[in-house]
């Protein structure tokens, strides 16, 4: 199925705690505008909070690109979090529940994947990490791939 992609509606910096607040507010606003239900709104905002914090804490700062997308008449929101940090050496380990290299719960990355409809991650050692997530305002337009 082909997705039509809107233009990037916003690109927000992620360099401080205050930026995390802005990221959450922006995603909340966008999902509300696209007609997401309260539960889907909350899920995507929470996933964005996790991924933005990872970019800030582990990636040393980065940015979030926010694009509205549509497919088969269904509206969605795509968020791309990128940083130029150290990258993730072992993706499976990072995604597993409870693994943290710091003092967190280690639930952020795996949890974010469960909170969204589509999730992909591209991380290169010494170059950085990019996580792309998409959620739709109703049932996803294609079956979700098994994680």
């Amino acid at each position, binding site marked *: 199925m082909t997705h039509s992609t809107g233009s990037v509606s916003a690109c927000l910096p992620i360099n401080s*705690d205050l930026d*995390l*607040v802005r990221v*959450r507010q922006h995603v*909340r606003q966008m999902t509300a505008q696209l007609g997401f239900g*309260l*539960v889907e*709104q*909350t*899920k995507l*905002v*929470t996933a964005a*909070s*996790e991924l933005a*914090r990872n970019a800030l804490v582990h990636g040393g700062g980065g940015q979030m690109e926010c694009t509205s997308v549509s497919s088969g008449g269904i509206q969605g929101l795509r968020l791309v979090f990128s940083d130029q940090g150290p990258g993730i050496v072992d993706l499976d380990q990072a995604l597993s*529940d409870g693994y943290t290299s710091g003092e*967190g*719960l280690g*639930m*952020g990355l*795996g*949890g*974010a994947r*469960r*909170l969204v409809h589509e999730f992909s991650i591209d991380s290169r050692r010494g170059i950085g990490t990019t996580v792309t997530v998409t959620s739709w305002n109703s049932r996803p337009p294609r079956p979700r791939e098994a994680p």
Partner: protein
Amino acid sequence: MPEQQVAEHETDPAEEVGAFLRRRREQIAQRWADAALFRTVYTVSRDDAVDAGRTVVEALAAVAVSGRVQDAEADGFTVVREQLARTAQARARAGATIAQISEEMDALRPPVTDLLLDELSESPAEHLRECTTALTVLMGTLRLVMLEATTIAGQELINRQRLELLEIATPVIKLWEGIVAVPLIGTLDSARSQVVMETLLDAVVEQHARIAILDITGVPTVDSLVAQHLMKTVAAARLMGAECIVSGIRPAIAQTIVHLGIDLSSVLTRASLADALAYALQQQGAHIVPNPASTVEPR
């Protein structure tokens, strides 16, 4: 003194403007004292307005002499930055917008330009043009310095208020003998969580509370960090001998927490603050007896 005039024509226009400002400091300050910006700020004493004007002219002269008319960071401005910020703030308090303040700053230029034109009326056109340009640029830079100082002062105010908010936004409410509640509102970042934990533990000690209720109805997002903070607070309260209940978990947030995979089973939770209070009272051995005279229909 024709000789001196010739010498002046060879000097750098910025330097010449600097010398001019020093010479005419008194006159400029007098004229400025009647301009809107100074008149409306120094309402009590015109002498104060003239004094303030003198300081600004002196700063402008120092900047011009140093040849940095375009540089808002020039040393000469340092002495007037605070004064300019205070002036702008006074205007803002009186209801002036940034645009208005900027306009009032702009209105300081013509009286100075007039004086300069008077003084240089005998000079060659080219030189006259260079000097007025230097003065115009200098006054533009002054305006920039003032607006910058205003913004920075505003930022400092915000930072201070943010700190104050950290403290006042965490009230501890005594609901009953031995029962305290902390309604949380807004973002629970790490700094805020620290304050919440300390406030709650202090209240547990001071009020001999056996039960502390953390109500998160006003917290918009519960992610793994917020959840971790909540769990830490609950664990700390437990160490102090108090039981901690988290209330106000809205349905959408409950579902999100489950998908996130966070296990809050170690935390006692209730849907609403009322439920939490009912539970707490029960734990204290209190009983809620419905009022038979109440007109409310039984459910």
